[in-house]
């Protein structure tokens, strides 16, 4: 089978490495990417117990340089970027002028610039929006020459410590000293690495930015460790679903506002008071609990998963909401899902009906995360 679409797909720096390991390649975000190697279930459980290596080089890595870059970025994100300390990371949202969510992203203050990681499927639109919205004295660089690897799982720190990675300055922290949502510049031999203690699986772990030509050397060195196996997109999706983390383009999009997406934590207090980000009036009118609908978690009665696109229905069978992600939780060994429901149905424990292929399926609104987060957080003093 061949179609024209396949030929326009781009290849990742690790393309041949994935294939040599038996990765099954599928189209995703404009790239051919490995959906699985040995199997989604085994890879998922391995990551929850050991450490998994994910190639996320399809994601967009962007630098913003220039005086006032943080303040300029704050015009289109609701996070408190100007207060972000050096080496700290913030999860935030890229907002359209009407407050709709254009993307979700990580922003790091490296001390020299802002380093952003945006979703692969949206990166070109994001960059065009940045260029249109940011003042000319803020320079944007798209780091297309860099790969990005995520090492995730309870043994990620022990595994990474086996590679001889040094901080840029001898008295700076080593990777194991970073706490969740902290980052720094490092050297692995003569290869420069940007390492963040972050990820999107709910586990402890790192995201490592590496020059494209060295991505395979690093991936191979990590996978040579007993703790580490390569993990595909399939398990990445089931891991983030268990962690209650929304996937852009599925669990939120430009038609959804932050409060509806259940992302109130991304609307920082200082920025709510300033109320000067794109769409602030519309976004804040819903804060904290005045939206008409909300993203919630669902447990499903029985063993059959419900999938994206299934309808939440009322007693008369009218659609009142929609499932945006659904699958089988390998950790809990039962189906779980995310859905948008009216506020009246959003309380944990509420019993609702989802209709899938004409069949009603009983579900219960559940707290998220479905599986507790296992982040390496800085102890609170």
């Amino acid at each position, binding site marked *: 089978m061949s179609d024209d679409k396949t030929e326009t797909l781009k290849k990742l720096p690790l393309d041949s490495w994935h294939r040599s390991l038996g990765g099954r390649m599928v189209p995703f975000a404009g790239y051919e990417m490995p959906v699985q190697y040995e199997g989604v279930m085994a890879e998922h459980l391995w990551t929850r117990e050991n450490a998994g290596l994910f190639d996320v080089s399809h994601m967009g890595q962007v630098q913003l340089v220039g005086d006032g870059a943080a303040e300029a970025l704050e015009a289109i994100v609701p996070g408190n970027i100007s207060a972000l300390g050096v080496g700290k990371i913030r999860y935030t949202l890229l907002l359209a002028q009407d407050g709709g969510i254009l993307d979700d992203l990580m922003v790091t203050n490296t001390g020299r610039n802002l380093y952003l990681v945006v979703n692969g499927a949206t990166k070109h639109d994001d960059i065009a929006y940045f260029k249109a919205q940011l003042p000319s004295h803020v320079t944007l660089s798209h780091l297309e020459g860099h790969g990005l690897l995520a090492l995730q799982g309870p043994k990620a720190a022990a595994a990474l410590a086996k590679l001889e990675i040094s901080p840029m300055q001898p008295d700076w922290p080593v990777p194991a000293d970073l706490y969740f949502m902290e980052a720094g510049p490092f050297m692995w031999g003569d290869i420069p690495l940007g390492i963040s203690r972050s990820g999107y699986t709910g586990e402890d772990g790192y995201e490592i930015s590496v020059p494209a030509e060295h991505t395979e050397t690093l991936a191979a060195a990590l996978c040579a460790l007993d703790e580490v196996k390569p993990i595909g997109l*399939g398990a990445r999706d089931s891991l983030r679903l268990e962690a209650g983390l929304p996937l852009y383009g599925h669990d939120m999009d430009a038609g959804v506002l932050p409060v509806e997406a259940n992302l109130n934590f991304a609307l920082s207090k200082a920025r709510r008071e300033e109320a000067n980000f794109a769409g602030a009036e519309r976004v804040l009118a819903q804060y904290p609990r005045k939206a008409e609908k909300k993203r919630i978690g669902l447990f499903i009665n029985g063993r059959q998963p419900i999938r994206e696109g299934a309808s939440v229905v009322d007693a008369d069978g009218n659609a009142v909401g929609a499932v945006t992600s659904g*699958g089988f939780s390998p950790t809990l060994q039962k189906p779980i899902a995310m859905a948008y429901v009216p506020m009246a149905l959003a309380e944990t424990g509420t019993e609702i009906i989802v209709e899938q292929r004409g069949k009603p399926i009983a579900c219960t609104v559940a707290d998220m995360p479905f599986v507790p987060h296992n982040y390496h957080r800085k102890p609170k003093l």
Partner: protein
Amino acid sequence: MSRYFTDEHEWVDVEGETATVGITDYAQEQLGDIVFVETPEAGAELSQGDDAAVVESVKAASDVYAAVSGTVVEVNDALEDEPALVNNSAEEDGWFFRLTLSDKSELDDLMDEKAYKAFVDGL
């Protein structure tokens, strides 16, 4: 007993007027870890090409179409407790349902084992 195959990766074992239907080893391999199988009800009348069953993996749901027309007489209840039977024994213990054939001439359009193997090798 003769075994037939479809280009939708189902197998059909025919004994007299009764056909046993399942998905092939190639299909289970492509689907990955199977976590649920929705089988038809006994008594259901299926026409060739109808939706007959749904196979759910961790990530996705896949339809299984009726390879041949007939009346469902038995479903594999073991799949309810152990859907992984389809992964472990797709072409034997992991069968989906049995039906009484209503039109045996439909079998003429299906592949034999050799033709199916050539079909899969060409994918």
